[in-house]
């Protein structure tokens, strides 16, 4: 069990690898932490957004005169007041590559393309006045035929959402010879898996406060994962990049839903127009249509396999619903294509994936980012193929799992360890004895799912991250970095890393973060990259400071710099610890000698070109994380109700920085994944969301959660600081297919569409009975 419990080995670290109290915890536990919505300013206005209540329409009339005339209304803006303004919706990265034609009108000029698209902005002295004014705006929309199903949208003559056709992006991956592979197969298994839209449903809906400072800088305090949208917002409102500043706050949940611009543009425009502070808070209903959701996908898998369990060929066809605007669809789709075979060796591979525009809500980033839809399909397909050849699903996986040093679908060899097999074994073992069958209509079932999920952004985006570390005269440490903290302890991790390197204890480190003009730019908190990228930058900066301090200490102690140790706020000679002094004393000596006590470091991810457009071969990501999830369920075969009894996660995280934070990510990933698998459903009727509240959109509650066991492996092979990998997205990726496989194991038939509701289970059983299967 030495691989399982690496706490012992972590003893060589004094600050990382342990469950230390995070720097953000006391404020959150006591309720003192101010979130973006808690900030107010004297004389501030309150804003509201008026939205379209049709998904496909022409704006015939928008009369705001009554609203404008209302006492207490400061301004009402429509597209007529800003005819040329649009906001970029994709990320060009640092390649200098041109953006896709993806700009979205900030307010509807003529054509409404999705339900909830903003028509007007209102700012007033109070939120109630703004709401009353919103209700005074007269809107006339003329419905025009829309398209709400991506397969329909691909047909000739289908309504075109915008541009010339509805195909938003296409990705291909071609490897080996699938024709020969299928010819060599004993059995070919073909299935289509359907994955649903999903809403991020963070506790904290989008909110922000904007004002113009003494230097005419439009300043926005907002909950976001990406303060670096300051560029896009500045471009949208026509001010220089250095005159727009975005400050974050601790964020009440992101999950990808605060990765795109949300309230920032509206706030900037209103502040610019009124020259007063303006606050805008989305209601929950606004939030449901205020950010892109997870792409619903249809994934057709055709697998060729030999009787003895070797995959000979795989053909995957994917259609993703991109909704009405492009946003991150091309990238989400690319993740799906790259991960289509999962963590398995497939020499003969053909992937053809398309993202298609519809008049549904636009879709964009969500934890797992395309990789999770692929996992939902490939792991169910692995079980189906194993069943088809009569092989144990674990044994079938063992025979095909990637091992360290194997190339993935794109031909790229991940530089780190691939410990999937170990994770599969440990997670399965940890389920222990099956729950006793209670009899009657209840059946017990178990499922496993392995996965591959990247951490770090697409390498053709040429990602960089900066951090500054300095040590003060009293031995305390300051970290400055633009990184946004979305609740996973991103800032605290930097503190823990700096503490480890500089030999101080965690309470002696303070992090200033999330300010686009005042902290060094660190990039996004997305793509499971914050620890990998900014953690490395912080480590580099701290190491540079440490090296300078160690040199002076070596001189003072008459030792070699390599013999200098720093821990628990003291500097010492490793072989002769009696020779020591407080680090603060050393810093004062350094200061008197003019030694540079701070460092600004940049970390660069690998830079590549895009994948080959025809074969998809090349490098897409810096590296990948691997692991597995095991689930045990009880299913009532009469009603279709599912109870999740056991949930075991096994992940190689490379290296824990904060063990409790890793476990927290795993617990959250399980909750998020169970909802995806079982209950969360965004239903649209002609593009209109008919489940826009938490009484209809059903996330698992505390009463629905099983006990969650976490097996945390540390291969120390990742590209992050101290060999760490990302865990934010990976924690969720395998959960849903593990649930699906457990249900199929329990009832003997598979429900191919998520969420696997009681009714879908009931129907699948009815159909199976009708076919005479059971």
């Amino acid at each position, binding site marked *: 069990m030495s691989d399982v419990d690496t706490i012992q080995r972590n003893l060589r670290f004094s600050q990382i690898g342990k469950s230390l109290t995070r720097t953000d915890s006391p404020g959150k536990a006591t309720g003192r932490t101010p979130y973006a919505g808690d900030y107010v300013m004297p004389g501030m206005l309150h804003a509201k957004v008026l939205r379209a209540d049709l998904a496909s329409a022409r704006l015939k009339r928008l009369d705001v005169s009554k609203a404008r005339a209302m006492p207490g209304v400061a301004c009402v803006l429509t597209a007529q007041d800003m005819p040329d303004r649009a906001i970029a919706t994709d990320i060009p990265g640092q390649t200098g590559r041109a953006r896709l034609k993806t700009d979205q009108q900030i307010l509807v000029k003529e054509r409404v393309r999705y339900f909830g698209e903003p028509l007007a902005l209102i700012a007033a002295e109070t*939120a*109630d006045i703004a*709401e*009353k004014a919103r209700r005074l705006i007269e809107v006339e929309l003329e419905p025009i035929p829309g398209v709400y199903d991506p397969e329909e949208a691909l047909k000739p003559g289908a309504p075109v959402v915008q541009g010339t056709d509805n195909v938003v992006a296409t990705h291909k991956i071609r490897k080996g010879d699938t024709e020969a592979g299928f010819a060599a197969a004993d059995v070919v298994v073909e299935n289509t898996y359907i994955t649903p839209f999903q809403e991020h449903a963070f506790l904290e809906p989008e909110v922000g406060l904007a004002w113009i400072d003494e230097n005419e800088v439009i300043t926005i305090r907002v909950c976001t994962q990406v303060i670096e949208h300051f560029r896009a917002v500045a471009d949208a409102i026509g001010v220089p990049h250095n005159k727009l500043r975005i400050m974050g706050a601790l964020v009440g949940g992101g999950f990808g839903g605060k990765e795109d611009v949300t309230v920032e543009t509206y706030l900037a425009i209103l502040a610019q127009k009124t020259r007063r502070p303006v606050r805008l808070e989305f209601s929950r209903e606004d939030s449901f249509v205020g950010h892109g959701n997870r792409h619903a996908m249809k994934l057709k898998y055709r697998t060729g396999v030999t009787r003895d369990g070797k995959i000979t060929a795989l053909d995957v066809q994917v259609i993703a619903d991109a909704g009405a605007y492009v946003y991150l669809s091309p990238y989400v789709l690319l993740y799906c294509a790259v991960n289509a075979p999962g963590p398995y060796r497939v020499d003969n591979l053909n992937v053809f994936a398309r993202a298609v525009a519809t008049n549904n809500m636009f879709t964009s980033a969500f934890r797992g980012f395309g990789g999770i839809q692929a996992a939902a399909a490939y792991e169910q397909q692995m079980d189906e193929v194993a069943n088809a050849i009569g092989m144990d699903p674990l044994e079938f996986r063992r025979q095909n799992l990637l091992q360290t040093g194997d190339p993935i679908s794109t031909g790229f060899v991940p530089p780190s360890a691939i410990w999937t097999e170990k994770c599969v074994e440990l997670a399965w073992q940890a389920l222990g004895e099956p729950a006793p069958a209670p009899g009657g209509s209840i059946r017990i079932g178990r499922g496993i799912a392995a996965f591959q999920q990247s951490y770090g952004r697409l390498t053709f985006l040429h990602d960089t991250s900066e951090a500054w570390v300095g040590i003060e005269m009293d031995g305390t440490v300051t970290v400055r970095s633009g990184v946004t903290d979305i609740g996973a302890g991103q800032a605290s991790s930097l503190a823990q890393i700096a503490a480890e390197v500089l030999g101080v204890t965690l309470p002696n480190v303070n992090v200033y973060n999330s300010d686009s003009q005042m902290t060094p730019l660190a990039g996004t908190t997305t793509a499971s990259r914050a620890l990998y990228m900014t953690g490395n930058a912080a480590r580099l900066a701290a190491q540079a400071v440490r090296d300078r301090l160690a040199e002076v200490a070596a001189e003072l102690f008459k030792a070699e710099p390599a013999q200098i140790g720093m821990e628990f706020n003291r500097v010492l000679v490793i072989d002769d610890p009696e020779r020591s002094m407080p680090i603060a004393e050393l810093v004062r000596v350094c200061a008197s000698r003019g030694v540079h006590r701070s460092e600004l470091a940049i970390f660069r991810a690998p830079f590549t070109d895009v994948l080959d457009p025809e074969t998809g071969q090349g490098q897409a990501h810096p590296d990948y994380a691997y692991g597995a999830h095991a689930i045990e369920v009880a299913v009532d075969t*009469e*009603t279709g*109700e599912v*109870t999740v009894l056991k949930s075991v996660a096994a992940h190689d995280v490379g290296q824990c920085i904060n063990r409790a934070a890793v476990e927290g990510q795993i617990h959250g990933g399980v909750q998020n994944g169970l909802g995806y698998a*079982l*209950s969360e*459903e965004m*239903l649209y009727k002609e593009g209109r969301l*008919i*489940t826009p*509240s*938490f*009484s*209809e959109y*059903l996330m*698992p*509650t*505390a*009463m*629905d959660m099983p006990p969650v066991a976490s097996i945390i492996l540390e291969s120390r092979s990742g590209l992050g600081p101290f060999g760490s990998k990302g865990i934010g997205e990976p924690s969720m990726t395998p959960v849903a297919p593990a649930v699906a496989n457990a249900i199929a194991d329990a009832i003997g038939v598979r429900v191919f569409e998520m969420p696997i*509701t*009681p*009714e879908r289970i*009931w*129907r699948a059983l009815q159909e199976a009975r009708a076919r005479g299967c059971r």
Partner: protein
Amino acid sequence: MYAEFDLTIPADLPEALTALAAAGTRAVPLSGGTNVLVDIRSQRIAPDRLLDLGRVHQLREITVDRGRVTLGARTTVGDLLASGEVTRYAPALTEAARVFAGQMVRNAATVAGNVACGSPAADLVPPLLVLDAELTLSSVRGSRTLALCDFYTGYKSDQRAPDELITAISWPIPATGSFGSFYKLARRKGDAITVVGVAVSLALGGGCCGGVRIALGSVAPTPLRVSKAEAVLEGQPPTPERIAEAARAAAEECSPIDDVRATGAYRRHMVGVLVARLLTNAIQAGN
């Protein structure tokens, strides 16, 4: 939340009834607020006046007297769970209270509010129906009692006059040997709106069923008793065939619709499954 309304906060019941009589037809009594405030926020209702009953404390008592259990109308769902009398004399109601929303809502939501909201999915109503519960409706004109099974007249419409308040809910202490239960079928375990709710109650005597009551939620415009299904078992020995027939009759008697939670077809089938299951359990418990 943006809404405009007048607010009256009466100090006691007579003041409340007077205020209600004076307020006209667009006043809404407010107690726990777990439905009313949600409906106002979503603009489903726009009352002119809210009558906040928060200070009418005498309506929050649970009493057992002369063979009847009586709940003051402002008894909360949480109060039901804390009451030994309710557990003893209305186990089906306790089961419904246990799966009612989540703890925060249970602390605020009242029994009368759940009855008065008229939702087909009101979880407390099927158990109260199988208890033969009666409502006391009071106004400045006086008080009257009404059987709960006669209260609803259609989807979200009922016999309460605009000047009346539900002030009490009562039921006879069930006969010794009777057994009641409730099951909530929903899409998740906490804070869920019911897809199908079933309550049953019966007593076994001399090998035959007596006092058979079967009530359903979320499968018709109102919660309802299915009397044809009840009649199949009443006075009869509970054979598996009769239970199946009663379940079939219950499924036929309801009229479920498709909505975001489930289809009508699934609901109807589940009525059959759950009625059979609850009857079987009740009979096993009775034996």
